[in-house]
């Protein structure tokens, strides 16, 4: 019946599916269920017979099952985690408690605004903090992840051009861009045109100048880019795009290596998204939930998604009175539980701490680069910002592929 003692739980990958642990008659009884009384309350043709296939497992077995699954995961908390084009940051434990405070966790999104002034203040403050960090003029916290932030940003760019008579037809994206960039542009109805990046790994302004024309709605650029390099020419690149009436979208997923060193708002960037689950220490959760706030320059402010918090004489209020807004990109207001953690992180770090974290990230990336340089081939031998890219050249003769190394 019960599986016997396993001396080294977690060493053997043999945890059955929860469905395979199910035994009829076992499991939780919440009480207060179906009865004579309830029989007439659901019309016959609407009534479900049973939950076929749902597990029947006792509470101890549910707990054991998921604890054993957890033992098969490696997280930032248990080991050094060098993977991903994303930054895996330490997730401060206190933020887990903060997000579970009843005043946040048990708050229904439709309570009267007077009853939610604390969280609304948090929204306003976090918007201001992100604006300060990025050098942008306004911020929305609504998007649920980086990719939704990109979509939101591109919709705003589209609305901006459309209001000026022509939404335009294409978006320039460097070949090295993260897959979400071209996908987001395409989902806003844009043709994606790749701009080549030279052997330096850096987008050069001249190339952009040649590629841009009056049909270009925007250039999407990642900075530091996905190779871990700072886009040195970003200012002239942005000028080239602006010169033809286009806008500059910056993928801010790698902002971790920029905070306190340079502000996208000073580089000619018109709109960018933040990945709070990367740069602001909120847990990655095995793939979300994240949050992808979007910062914009003044010219794009009217298009920010609704609702927005506005200050009134009676206090903070949600308002949908923004007729030029692109509309709503999700239910309610954003991933509040994630925003709460990000805000607590900023409080703990402070301006000085954020800047130091950035510098340490740059240092650590360059350190890893230096230590592995002799062993692996380094295609772009420049100082990097937050990560560095190696490839498997040189290992081919041993028949080794990148996946084996990982």
């Amino acid at each position, binding site marked *: 019946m019960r599986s016997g003692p396993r001396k080294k739980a977690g060493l053997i*990958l043999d*945890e059955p599916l929860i*469905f395979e642990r*199910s035994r009829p008659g076992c499991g939780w009884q919440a009480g*207060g*269920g179906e009865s004579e009384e309830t029989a007439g309350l659901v*019309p016959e*043709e609407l*009534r*479900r017979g*049973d*939950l076929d296939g749902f*597990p029947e497992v006792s*509470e101890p077995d549910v707990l054991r099952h*998921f604890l054993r699954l957890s033992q*098969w*995961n*490696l*997280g930032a*908390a*248990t080991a050094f985690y060098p993977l*991903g084009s994303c930054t895996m940051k330490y*997730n401060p434990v206190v933020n887990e408690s*903060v997000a579970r405070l009843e*005043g*946040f*966790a048990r708050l229904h*999104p439709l*309570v009267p605004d007077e009853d939610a*002034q604390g969280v609304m203040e948090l929204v306003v403050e976090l918007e201001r*903090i992100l604006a300060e*960090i990025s050098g942008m003029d306004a911020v929305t916290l609504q998007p*649920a992840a980086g*990719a939704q932030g990109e979509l939101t940003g591109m919709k705003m760019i*589209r*609305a901006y051009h459309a209001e000026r008579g022509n939404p335009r037809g294409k978006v320039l994206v460097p070949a090295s861009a993260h897959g979400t960039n071209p996908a987001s542009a395409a*989902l806003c109805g844009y043709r*994606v045109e790749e701009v080549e990046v030279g052997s330096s790994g850096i987008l050069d302004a001249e190339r952009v100048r040649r590629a841009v024309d009056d049909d270009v709605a925007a250039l999407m650029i990642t900075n530091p880019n996905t190779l871990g*390099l*700072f886009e040195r020419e970003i200012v002239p690149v942005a000028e080239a795009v602006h010169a033809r009436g286009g806008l500059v979208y910056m993928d801010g997923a790698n902002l971790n290596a920029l905070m306190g*060193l340079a*502000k996208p708002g000073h580089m000619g960037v018109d709109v960018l998204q933040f990945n709070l689950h990367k740069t602001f220490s909120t847990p990655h*959760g*095995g*793939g*979300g*939930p994240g949050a992808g706030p979007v910062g914009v320059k003044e010219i794009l402010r009217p298009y920010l998604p609704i609702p927005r918090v506005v200050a009134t004489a009676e206090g903070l209020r949600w308002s949908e009175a923004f007729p030029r807004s*692109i509309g*709503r990109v*999700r*239910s*309610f207001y954003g991933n509040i539980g994630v925003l709460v953690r990000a805000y*607590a992180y900023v409080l*703990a*770090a402070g301006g000085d*701490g*954020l800047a130091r974290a950035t510098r340490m990230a*740059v*240092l650590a990336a*360059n350190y890893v680069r230096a230590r592995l340089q002799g062993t692996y081939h380094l295609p772009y031998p420049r100082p990097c910002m937050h990560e560095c890219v190696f490839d498997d050249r040189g290992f081919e003769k041993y028949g080794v592929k990148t996946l084996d190394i990982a």
Partner: protein
Amino acid sequence: MRFLPHTDADVQAMLEAIGVGSLEELLADIPADLRERAALQLPPGLPEREVWRRMESLARRNAGAARTVFLGAGAYPHYCPAVVDHVLQRAEFYSSYTPYQPEVSQGTLQATFEFQSLVAMLFDLDVANASMYDGASAAAEAVWMALRLAPQRRRIVLSRALHPHCAQTVRTYLAGFGEVEVAEVPWGEDGRVDLPALERAMGGDTAAAVVGYPNAFGIAEDLAAVRRVASRAGALVITVTPEPLALAVWRPPGSFGADIAVGEGQSFGIPLSYGGPGVGLFATRMQYVRSMPGRLVGQTVDTAGRRAFALTLATREQHIRRERATSNICTNHALMALAVTVYLCAMGRRGLRDVAWKNLRLAHEVAERLCASGKWRRRFGGAFFNEFVLARSDLESVLERARAAGIVPGWPLGRWFPELGDCLLTCVTEVHSGDEVERLVEVLA
């Protein structure tokens, strides 16, 4: 910064290993004028104790969390067994990365596989993905998918009784997505989509009809009829379920022939958190799987022939297909999907039905008692689950009275639908104690 492990000695040693004299040298690529203006005008860092104090004081100013609240309308208060949060607090789960490397992610992958199986069973459809952001964006993705499946059809028909956040998100997502026309169909007297109007709205150019199940009034749409009407037009049926607990007692959308069923999973073990994060549920028929957005975990065998789990059908996704991907979604809501999985396993086959029946019974009891008071009337006749719409001409003053009593008795529907200015959408669930229900009835009746 207390989260950083580097001592000054470490920094020095690292700089030496890199072969530079200072950190500044590593930043040479950043133009000087950008560096000069980069200082952050933010207060200095606080010790944990002060952070906690500040956050507690913000939390305390959310008085709504302490009131007796009978709100649903897209976010539902339910009791969550403690085992759910216990599992979510495992650092191995919450701090782990997207499971791109299956060797170190079998835990997340197997749990996600179980999530997908549960969601597919719940909706009675063939396949579910690894999660979306929330119900509203899942609905918008479903519409994208329907349009992709029928490239010549450029019309989407929405029931007006769909949760307005879904309808609005669909519209936002469609801006620029080709020339798509969005039609809205009114509700009938029973609060369900008006079938003759639906029939009229759907022509050969319609890709899909989208209805709520339950809809914005807590009412079950007549999915059998919607399916018939849609089939005549050759269109898909998309259902959106904001309160999936209803599906423990209502027939699942798949059993009525829905093509895509999406929903919001917050009811299943996720705290309200002022509306987010929740989790988007997304299921469809096997024949459409290659057009489905989002990640998918499949069962496979490892090199030693043992069962293992891995991401599958990734060629639909942005990191491979780029601008031709089925969606731009990358990070989804994995940890919330885990919460749903643990919740459903902890409640189990019988427990989930038990609690669903309890919701249904309580809500019907309250609705009946209020109507029996003679002061309220049911606005719509359709079958409901745990929330219902009652009308009363002096609604505003009743709301004020309730407020004084510390009760939020429901959502005034006039905020969403001007013609329902006298209507209140009230939700009663298993979290409401007998005393709380009595106080509600007392204040309202």
